[in-house]
């Protein structure tokens, strides 16, 4: 019963990712797009964890942890490039 709720929340999170993609496409400045990609990556971590529970695959949790780390590094990198103009 609760697995059905997990599946339904997965589908709902995917629909909200499409709403975030609208902001990433329209967004008037660069920072709007960075914020939108950050939100999408957070939702993707939640979806990966839900999928690992639904299908009983434990290694999806490792993938979710690495994805969270990479998205954090990407956000920090884009913010530093936006502020200083160089990446070094």
């Amino acid at each position, binding site marked *: 019963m609760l697995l059905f709720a997990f599946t339904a929340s997965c589908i709902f999170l995917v629909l*909200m990712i499409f709403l975030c993609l609208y902001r990433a496409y329209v967004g008037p400045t660069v920072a*709007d797009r960075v914020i939108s990609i*950050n939100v999408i990556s957070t939702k993707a971590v939640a979806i990966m*964890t839900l999928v690992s529970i639904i299908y009983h695959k434990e290694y999806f949790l490792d993938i979710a942890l690495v994805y969270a780390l990479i998205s*954090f590094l990407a956000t*920090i990198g884009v913010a530093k490039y936006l502020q200083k103009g160089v990446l070094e």
Partner: protein
Amino acid sequence: MEIISFIVLIFGIFFFMVGVVGLLRFPDVYTRLHATTKCDTLGIGLILFSIMLYQGFTGPSVKIGIIIIFIWLSNPTAAHAIAKAAYSVDIPMIKGTVFADQSKEESSSW
């Protein structure tokens, strides 16, 4: 235990939905950042805590706890970096913003 897990899951989905509405509706970079960062941090914490309650104390549950701790550390840090970068390259704020920093107010035009 399943009832508590379901209620926590619904609260997490609700906070994600509030964050997306704030991302779509707010007029400014800084207000969008204010809406999405707090709602997403709390929402993913609640959803992963609901999965931890569903599983009980096992090996994957400890891994999910590590993911929660890492996201609660990294998400506000990333938001702070974006806000500092957007403020330093003068991305404009919404009309009617009151500054506490007087030197920034004199040099700007709105």
